[in-house]
């Protein structure tokens, strides 16, 4: 599925300063029963967001009206655990287009890139600055500039560059996905398959 193009995103951000946020929190297993990719945003962080009787937990960031925006800022080792792409779908479907952390789990990062959510890895110091800036002013804006590969705290102008492979960057800028690419080299794949050791 081709996805939205990503260029420059300017937005407020939602802070979640917890480490090792795992995919079972992002989307608990009992919400993985759909056979279509719809409605996962409602269950993003389900058990942190809602009480067992489905009333919202007041102290959770997503239920705090002072925080909003298309950027989610998480603690270290964000997205650890299962390979469920549903975790990235839930993040996307809720309305986030970018996740910022000082460290991402591998599969989650990959899954994000495959569906058009930009994972931005920053230094622990810069992550700290972002958390502080949001704490000081929840309306503070971040600019995520994919062409320049920079993330900027607009109020202070402090910025950092982030890494992304040129291939993935090109995909994100144009809304292409890997399947488009693989389809285009199918004859080469079929030829390759003739010479495998197994």
């Amino acid at each position, binding site marked *: *599925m081709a996805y939205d193009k990503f260029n420059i995103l300017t937005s407020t951000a939602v802070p979640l*300063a*917890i*480490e*090792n946020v*795992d995919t*079972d*929190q992002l989307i*608990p*297993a*009992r919400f*993985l*029963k*759909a*056979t*279509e*990719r719809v409605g996962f945003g409602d269950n993003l962080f389900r*058990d942190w967001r809602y009480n*067992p009787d489905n009333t919202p937990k007041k102290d959770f960031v997503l239920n705090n009206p002072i925080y909003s925006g298309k950027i989610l800022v998480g*603690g*270290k*080792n964000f997205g*650890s*655990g*299962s*390979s*469920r*792409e*549903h975790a*990235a779908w839930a993040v996307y479907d809720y309305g986030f287009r970018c996740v910022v952390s000082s*460290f*991402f*789990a*591998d*599969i989650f990062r*990959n*899954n994000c890139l*495959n*569906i058009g959510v930009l994972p931005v890895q920053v230094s622990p110091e810069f992550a700290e600055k972002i958390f502080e800036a949001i704490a000081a002013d929840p309306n503070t804006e971040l600019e995520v500039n994919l062409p320049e590969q920079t993330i900027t705290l607009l109020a202070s102008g402090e910025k950092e560059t982030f890494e992304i*492979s*040129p*291939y*993935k960057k090109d995909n994100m800028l144009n809304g292409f*996905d*890997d*399947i488009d*690419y*693989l*389809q285009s*080299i*199918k004859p*080469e*794949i*079929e030829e*390759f*398959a003739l010479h*495998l*050791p*197994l």
Partner: protein
Amino acid sequence: MSKTLFDKVWDTHVVRKIEGGPDVLFIDRHLIHEVTSPVAFLGLKSRGIKVLYPERTFATADHNTPTINQHLPVEDPLSANQLKALESNSNEYGISHWGLGHQKNGIVHVVGPEYGITQPGATIVCGDSHTSTHGAFGAIAFGIGTSEVEMVLSTQCIMQPKPKKMRINVNGKLGLGVTPKDVALFIISQLSTSGATGYFVEYAGDVFENMTMEGRMTVCNLSIEMGARGGMIAPDETTIEYVKGREFSPKGEAWDKALAYYKTLKTDADAVFDKELTFDGSSIEPMITYGTNPGMGMGISQEIPDAAHAEGGAATYAKSLGYMGFSEGDSMIGKKVDFVFVGSCTNGRIEDFRAFTSIVKGKHKADDVTVWLVPGSHIVEAQIKEEGLLDILTEAGFTLRQPGCSACLAMNDDKIPAGKYAVSTSNRNFEGRQGPGSRTMLASPLVAAAAAVTGVVTDPRTLIENVEELV
């Protein structure tokens, strides 16, 4: 140039390298299940493309399936719908489908090796992070997302940057009651849940060389819990002995050719790893976790470390212990246990049931503990019966359920109730993993058995009477 085992298998499967981008990697074997495949098939349909090599993909239903009364229709309409989707998609695209009730049905990472789908030197993927299990055979095996499932179905390839390489050496003699699960939980406790992120791990040393294939699978299975993409062990005689003659293993001339390939699958003497770690196997104790990620594990006779010695930061640590209802400095021994779960692709194979039985033999299930014994497949189920383990278990007050993922991720009815404590042989102790509000302590089948007969966390070494019988 000298190569590691990982390099050899990876490089053999690179169709194309993209400048400034990932490698296009050919996938030999693809395993699918009902939860992470439906949307991939929808993608194929909307693009109007076929499955390129249906004979390279195998489907089994496991995540959602009930573990009792499997002959009856599945009650939960959503689960039933996913199972139906797997079946109809498999049929439509010509993929082998081992659905509920099929004799080959079972947990995807248990049946793959059992039927010889898993081969040394192969590339294997599945939309489940514990695909790393198959690395036990010297395969490159790892979990993928649904977009990637669609890539493999449509082109038999995925696009991945080549990970860095790490070797973990464990040498020495393991102590009494120390199982492969303990070795793995020990390594994760040393590295933390993110300590191997970005790496593919090779396990080396005599501890792994002396392990059975079942033990190696347990170790490789847990590689993902330290963030590694996967883990692998070089194939040797033990591996070849296991693989030979299985249903989907190469036969005749193809076997000779495969064997010649298997023999090349070891790290060259002077190959270099990006990171290398060495541990002393004799220092490892039976392990148990006390927190809400698999890195929060300790020797069962130790005390819960204080925040200053824990990974994850003080706030995260406090949240975790608060969830578990434990405190810094607590001993785990003697903590109340409400549920015991033996099963999953981590510890749901025959050896695990042998180990469990070796402890409970001649004893009785503690009255106030609920015990779920869930074999990983019908083959395991049959072995338990044929070896007479079921009789011993029944005598001791236990019953056996039917194969499936069960309480490992609690997508079916096997949910640990909120607030209850479970000793589980599975792989994740995340908040709510085994049911909303459930509290999980990960451990080996021996520790699980000790809890099942005493009702509290117990050092299994205190219950081992007949050392010879111990696996």
